[in-house]
Structure formats: C-alpha cells, structure tokens
C-alpha cells in the first residue's frame, strides 16, 4: 500500500446512497445550471464544446484549402475565396482552438482536482472568461457570415490596414476580445496554483501538468496584452487612418511584425507547453513509473516559458532586420532546444523499465513524441540563418508548425481527452475504436504534412493558390493524407459521443494512475472531494517494479 492510499477513500467500495453527493454532472440538469455555473468542471466542458465546434469549422476550412490545391491552376475557387479560406483556418485554429484547447478545457477541469482544491481561485471570473471567449467567437462568426477576412492569421500591415478589401475589423475585434479571456484564465490559474493547493501539496509535489499550466498562464498574462495593443493599433489605423504601421501615413510596417511576433512566438508555447504537461501525465500513467527527472522537467517548463520571450526576431531574418539582431535571435532560438530536449529524453527514460500499457492515450503520447521531435528539429533548421533565408514563408514552415501544432498539441489534446474522459463523463470510451482512430490520425497526419517539407525545400511559397505544375503530385499526396486525417478525426468524435450513453461506467481510477484527480469519484462530486485531501507523498509515486523473472 503506497502512502497515498492512506488518505484516500477506496473508490471501489459502494457508498450508502444518502452519503454520496450527486456528481457534478447530475446535480442539476437545467440550462441555467450549465450557462451560469461557476463550477470549474462544468466551465471546462463548456469550453470543450465550444472549441470542438470551432475545430470543426477550422477543419472544414483546411479541407477546402486542400481541395483547392489538388489542381495547380486554381480552378476550384477564386483566389479571393482561397485567401479567405486559409485565413479563417488560421484565425480559428490558432485563437479559437489551439490557444484555449488544453488550458481552458483540461486546465479548468483538472487544475483544482490535481492540487486538491474545490475550485479555481475566482470561479465567477472563470465563468466570465468563457463569456468573453464566446463574445470573441461571436465576432469571428459574424466575420465569417458577412464574407470573411483575407489577411492571413498574421494580419501584416499595411495590407491589413490599408489594402485588404475584406472584413478585417470584426475579425480583429474577435481576436482582441478573446485575448481578454486568455488573460483572465491565466490570472485565475496563477492565483489558484499559488493559493489553493491542499495541505501537503508543495510545489515539487505538483503534477507536471500543473507546472506547465502555471508556465502557460504566465505567458498568457505577460504576452497577450502585447497582441491586444498591437491589434487595437491595427483597428485604429484601418478605421481612423491614424498612421502607425503604413508608411503612407507615417508609420512603420516592420513595427507590426515585431509586436505581432513578440506575442505570437510565446503563443506557440501557450499551445505547446500544456501539451507537454499532458504527455508527461500519460507517459507516467501508462508506464506506471515515476517521471524521470521530475525537477528537470518542471524547471524546463519554466525555462521554455522564459526563453520564448527572447526569440521573436527569428520570424524576421529576411525583412531587413540588422545582421547582428538576426544572429543573436538565431543563437537564442537554438537555446530553446535545450529544455525541449530535456522533456523528450526524460519521457523516453520514463518509458524505460516501466510497465507499459498501449492503450489509446499512450498511443497518442508515443505519436506525439515522434512528431514533436520532428517538428522541433525542423524548427532548429528554420532558426539557422542561411536555411531560413531559403525556407522562410515556404511550405517547409507550414509543415514544421503543423508538426508542432497538430502532431504536438492536437495529439496531446486527443490523448488527454481519452485519458481523462472517464473522469469528465463517468464513461469509458471503446478501446479498440480508440486505437484505430489514433492510428488513422497518425498516418493521415504524416501523409498530409511530410510532403510539405519537400514542397518547401523545392521552393513552393506558402499561401499560394496557383502554383507551378511540377508541385502537383506532392500536393495531391498531401490532400489525400488530409482525407485520411479527416476520417481519423471522425472516430473519436463519433465514439466519444456514443460513449456518453452507451460507454461502460467508469470506476474512479480506471488506469490505476496516481494523482489526486483519480482519488475522487468519476465523475467527481460538485466540490471535487468529500474530504479535503492531505498530501504526504511524492508525485507519481508508482511502486518500483519488482523484477519479474519468469
């Protein structure tokens, strides 16, 4: 019996009905009880539903982009339509799916559970964050309905301020508003981690996922205001002709690139860090083993959140930035590889000598590690000055960041979703369907994006609707892969919803995993724990395996 079991209720024992509080899902069924809930778990599910809807929209846009690129001459859509499609894909996926994905859903649901708290520090602020998110989403939907926006998700000036003939201002307002949701969520999480930990939950007893949420929240707080200001300045210039970025009005377009990337590079780590946290949880649980080098992994999260503020200039090697600045930014970008490597090597070492179960979440985790490594190292290629001078703004960049965003964040999201699904819903998902879905997504993803590395090296620029005929074969491969990927996504979308009604009832701890979230019932009661947990054990205290010699 490990020390942790001493303070936990044995989940297997049936409890007298009167004593057992209704779980958070069944306490009340009214719409009001969902839309005005201050329960972090219900808010987490509200986010889950919202971002899933946005994911579907963004994926449809991506599918249409891939459809258009089957032919080189741009016959399928007009160029204006194509430009709106890839812009909507980028805006929706970045701001309405990837950035809120793991922090707002799993973070909201799990952070209090993992640190033994009843809720986040500011429950009403938490609900407000969701309403702010939905207000931003509303503006984005309006943009989409009235005709879309064609600036690219990067909104580069002076194209966005003076030259674009699309609905730039409503799109900008959507992104500006959703930023406040990020800021408030970040604030909430930082205070929660500082003030709401249960007795005995010291900093170095926190799960790595909590560390990564904490690091992410710091980025939310420190970086998001910069993009908010930059985008407000864009609105000022476009709406009122106040010259900030357009040289005709006395502005400087490179200033916008600086402001934009000063946020948007850290934003990459908003998307990546929580995924790393999820993967650490999955690898430990499905290896039934302590995380190798726990403190290094924890510090690496904070290191990534810090260094990421110092590398924005690597997006601007070919915009006339001074050679000295470019060289320094290149060197600093190489430094990012160190904490990233720490994570990858420590995951590998955690798997070594574990007791591995290859359930769906672990398949996603293993896929994640492979794709993240490929995405990370091609990032180092792009941080190399002379390579970037060739590959900047080509499909190589597109492939690189999709390996990080889809191969990384998306797989972590799906892995985590399967892992915690029993906790969220009280139901198990069907395991064999899960594995088939994971395999299809992994294969489909690689067939979609690997050809894009080659296309990029051959010199195909990104955001090209019409392209030279010699690139058609690789583009068809990529589109075929996107079809497999789409079929793959249908699997979890279908069987997870199916499982809500027909899934096997989940026990409190279906994976025999460590961590406070598994000590309470599935789904948890409204206040998470009947008795406030007291922690007197180390994180991931899986027993050291006895030698099995058969």
């Amino acid at each position, binding site marked *: 019996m490990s020390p942790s079991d001493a303070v936990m209720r044995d989940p297997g024992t049936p409890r007298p009905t009167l004593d057992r509080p209704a779980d958070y899902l069944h306490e009340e069924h009214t719409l009001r009880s969902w839309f005005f809930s201050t329960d972090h778990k219900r808010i987490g599910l509200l986010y889950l539903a919202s971002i899933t809807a946005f994911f579907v929209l963004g994926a449809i846009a991506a599918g249409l982009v891939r459809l258009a690129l089957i032919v080189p001459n741009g016959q399928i859509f007009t*160029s*204006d339509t194509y*430009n709106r499609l890839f812009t909507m894909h980028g805006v929706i996926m970045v701001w309405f799916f990837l950035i809120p994905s793991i922090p707002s859903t799993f973070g909201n649901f799990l952070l209090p559970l993992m640190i033994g708290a009843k809720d986040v520090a500011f429950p009403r602020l938490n609900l407000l964050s969701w309403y702010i998110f939905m207000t931003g989403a509303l503006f984005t939907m309006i943009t989409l309905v009235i005709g879309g926006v*064609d600036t*690219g998700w990067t909104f*580069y000036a*002076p194209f966005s301020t003076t*030259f674009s003939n699309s609905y730039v201002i409503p799109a900008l307002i959507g992104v500006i508003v959703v930023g406040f949701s990020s800021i408030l969520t970040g604030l909430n999480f930082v205070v929660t981690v500082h003030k709401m930990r249960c007795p005995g939950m010291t900093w170095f007893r926190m799960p790595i996922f909590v560390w990564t949420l904490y690091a992410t929240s710091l980025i939310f707080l420190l970086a998001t205001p910069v993009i908010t200001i930059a985008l407000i300045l864009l609105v000022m210039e476009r709406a009122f002709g106040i010259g900030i970025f357009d*040289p005709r009005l006395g502005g400087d*377009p490179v200033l916008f690139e600086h402001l934009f990337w000063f946020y948007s590079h850290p934003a990459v780590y908003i998307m990546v860090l929580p995924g790393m946290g999820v993967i650490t949880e999955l690898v430990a649980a499905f290896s*039934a083993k302590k995380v*190798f*080098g726990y403190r290094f992994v924890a510090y690496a999260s904070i290191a990534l959140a810090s260094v990421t503020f110092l590398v924005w200039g690597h997006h601007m090697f*070919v*915009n*006339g930035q001074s*050679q000295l600045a470019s*060289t320094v930014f*290149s060197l600093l970008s190489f430094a990012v*590889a*160190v904490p990233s*490597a*720490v994570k990858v090597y*420590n995951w*590998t*070492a955690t*798997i070594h*000598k*574990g007791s591995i179960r*290859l359930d769906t979440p*672990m398949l996603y985790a*293993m896929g994640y*590690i*492979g794709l993240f*490594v*490929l995405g990370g*190292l091609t990032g*180092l*290629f792009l941080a*190399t*000055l*002379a*390579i970037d*001078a*060739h590959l*900047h*703004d080509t499909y190589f960049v597109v492939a690189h960041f999709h390996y990080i965003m889809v191969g990384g964040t998306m797989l972590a999201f799906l892995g985590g979703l399967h892992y915690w699904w029993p906790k969220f819903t009280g139901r198990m998902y069907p395991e064999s369907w899960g594995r088939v879905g994971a395999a299809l997504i992994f294969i489909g993803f690689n067939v979609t994006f690997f050809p894009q590395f080659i296309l990029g*090296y*051959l*010199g195909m*620029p*990104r*955001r*090209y609707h019409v392209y030279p005929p*010699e690139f058609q*074969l690789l583009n068809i491969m990529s589109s075929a892969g996107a079809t497999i990927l789409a079929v793959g996504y249908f699997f979890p979308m279908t069987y997870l919803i199916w499982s809500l009604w027909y899934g096997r009832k989940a026990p409190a701890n279906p994976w025999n995993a460590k961590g406070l979230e598994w000590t309470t019932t599935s789904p948890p009661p409204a206040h998470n724990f009947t008795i406030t947990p007291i922690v007197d054990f180390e994180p991931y205290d899986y027993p*050291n*395996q006895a*030698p*099995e010699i058969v």
Partner: protein
Amino acid sequence: MTPDDAGGHPLALWPAAASLNAHEVDHLILGFTVVTLLLTVPIFVGITYFALRYRVGRAADRRHGEGRDVRIELLWMLIPFALTLGFFLWGAMIFNTEVNPPADAMQIEAIGRQWMWKFEHPGGQAEINDLHVPARQDIKINMISQDVIHSLYVPALRVQMETLPDRYTQLWFKADRPGVYRLYCSEYCGTDHSKMDGELTVMSPADFAKWLVQAGSTQSLAAVGARLYVAYGCGGCHDAKSGIAPSLAGLYGSAVRLAGGSTVVADDTWLRGKILNPDSDPVAGYRQVMPSFHGVLKEDDLTHIVAYIRSLQEPTQ
C-alpha cells in the same frame, strides 16, 4: 519554356542549384539532417523498443534506481546543444555572405507592387516579372515596394528578401549556371499573391550583352534621374554653386552630420526619406527650406533620382 528548377520533373525531390551559395546551403541542410537523424533515431527506436520490451505482462527486469541522475540530465542537455551550435555558426557564416553584397555588384532596381515585379537595369532596360542577368557576375537587387510588404524569392539561389514599402532592401547573388529559374513573391500580399511570380533567366555574359541591346533603352536610370532633377528644379538649391542646400556630388554613401549632432550614412533609404520628408532630422549647417515631394514623385521617379545621386559619386561621372 519550363524553368529548370526541378528539371520539369514531377518527381524531383531536390531543387536546382544555380549558385555557389545554393550548394553551400544544401550542404548545410544535409549535414544538419544527418545530425538530426543521429539525435532522433535512437529516441524513436528506443521508445518503440521499450514500449514492446516492457509491455505489461512481459517478463523483464524492471528494477531501476529511485534517484535522478544529474549527470545524465546534463549530458543530454549539453551534447545535443553543442552539436547543434555548430550548425548555428555554419548558418551564420553563410548568412554573413548572403546579406553583405560586394561593393562592385551590378545593381538592378526592383519595385514590387500588387501584383507584379518591375525590374530596371542600370542602362534603363525595364522588365515586368521576368529578370535577365549575366552568369558569374555579382548582382545586387535594390528593391522597394509601392504598397504592401512583398518578398523576392528565388529558390534556385536559396535566397529571399522582403520588399518593404518605406525602405530599400537588398538581395544579392552570383549565379554560375545559365538557365531559367522561377522567382516568386513569398510574402502574402493579397488577391493575386500567387500570380506575382516570374522567371529569372541567367545568361552567359555574351548572350546577356546581346539581350541588353535587344531589350532596348534610350537612356540609363541615372540619366532619367538627371532629367527629373532638372524638371523639378532641384538644381536651384542643390547645385554646387548655390550654397542653399548641400551639394549632391559625392553625397551618396558619405557620412552626413545632422542638426541634432548625430551622423547618418546617406544611403538609398535615407536619400529617399529626405526627398519625401525633408523636415525630419535636418542636416547640420543648412536652413530647412526644402518642400516635401510626398505624393508628387512616384516610386519609380524616386528610384531614378536616387540612381542619379548615386551616379554622382562614381568616378566615371
């Protein structure tokens, strides 16, 4: 004619290399790929092997130490970092060559606008979207945008540079293999971004000389600039004998002292800025009386006047 980039082959997996720089970048990325594989293949193999070897239910020795080993952490932090730093240096060295054009490079003016490129040779020959250059000669493209940000990209040379609306940027290369290569706008610039492309034709010097004659031109860029200089009455103040304003002879590339006390090098961007906004940062020793030519001179005119001022420092003039 199909450009030579991929040899016209739909299965080509490597782009044509038309310059020494292109070969160097290829070596760099190939070297980096090899090191990357050395660092990652063990991880991929390791994870797969461990996942099967230590799968639950399989007999295996699972004993492991409890303590974390600081040495192994430091090793796998520092060794890959040191290995990759070599590539940082290698890349920075090639980049150093890429961004510093030789002083005697032949200068071609380029203007990017939605959605076309305009190139002008020193002799005044103008081209739209396509560019002809001689092989084995240093070429510097001095470019500026008339509207939004563009970027001139020639994959066969492995270089690109953004074309900004308020300042000149330079892209230089020395192509050594005659042929036809694609050039693109690589920075998204609106509706027909993907049609803002053309062909770079690298010709033997003899062919290029013939091409220049066929392309025809009545006067050089500097001569066009000189005409504008007269037409707009610039000489009234800027002629050497007037004394009202600094003389333009020998100005290009020299250090100019500003009224604020600092100095600035009179390069293309600064000269263009002075013509458009003479009030900002006045030059020391002169009263600022120059009117702004903002909205008066077109981008092409500005390029020509700057070319004229540049010609005034060349020994041949």
